[in-house]
């Protein structure tokens, strides 16, 4: 299983993290699931971080944005395949908060570390299993040129 993403879209989400630094950015990955469980990203949808109380280390996507994105994706035969956010001056690894707040089993959670305003590393993790036993699994990111 892997997350396939065009280089231009990967750069778009990494740049989003630089633009919002020192705050966390966030957004939605729209695309398609393949029968083997892999995902192909076809669009990156930047969202606002509504955690204005602590945007430097927390993010929250307004559910109304998710509703709109999910509806438009389904109407065009696509799907929400994952989400992304940044970790300002922190490694591109999921945190306990990331896991506790993750509820989209089967989807990718892409994290970019942004050090001193520059995007450094981007990793992806797939959320697995039911809510009570959920966990992240490292996921290969295949970048298409």
């Amino acid at each position, binding site marked *: 299983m892997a997350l396939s993403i065009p280089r231009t879209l990967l750069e778009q989400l990494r740049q989003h993290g630089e633009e919002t630094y020192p705050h966390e950015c966030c957004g939605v990955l729209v695309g398609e*699931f393949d029968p083997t469980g892999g995902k192909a990203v076809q669009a990156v949808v930047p969202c606002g971080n509504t955690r204005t109380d602590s945007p430097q280390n927390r993010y929250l996507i307004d559910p109304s944005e998710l509703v709109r994105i999910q509806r438009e994706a389904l109407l065009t035969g696509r799907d929400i395949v994952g989400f992304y956010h940044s970790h300002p001056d922190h490694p591109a690894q999921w945190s306990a908060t990331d896991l506790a707040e993750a509820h989209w089993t089967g989807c990718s959670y892409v994290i970019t570390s942004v050090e001193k305003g520059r995007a450094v590393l981007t990793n992806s993790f797939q959320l697995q299993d039911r809510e009570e036993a959920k966990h992240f699994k490292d996921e290969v990111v295949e970048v298409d040129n």
Partner: protein
Amino acid sequence: MPIKILIPTPLRPYAGSKSIIEVNAQTVGEALGDLVTRHPDLRKHLFSEDGKLRSFVNVYLNDEDIRYLSKDATPVKETDTISIVPSVAGGR
């Protein structure tokens, strides 16, 4: 009346792999009730043991959060769409 419910990716394994399910209802509560009657495996993923929506599950009628309408008692029209979206949040 028939009304559409959009099912998010993580709940589809419990909903016959469908992304859109049509139910019969006059209110949002009836719609969700009909949904879990048709797909019983969905119930524990949507509702806690006390029958309330799980804290991370958002339900929208078109573009409005039902918590700011009349919750379960919110009336629905045939042209309405109900969306279920688990929350997306986190941080380092």
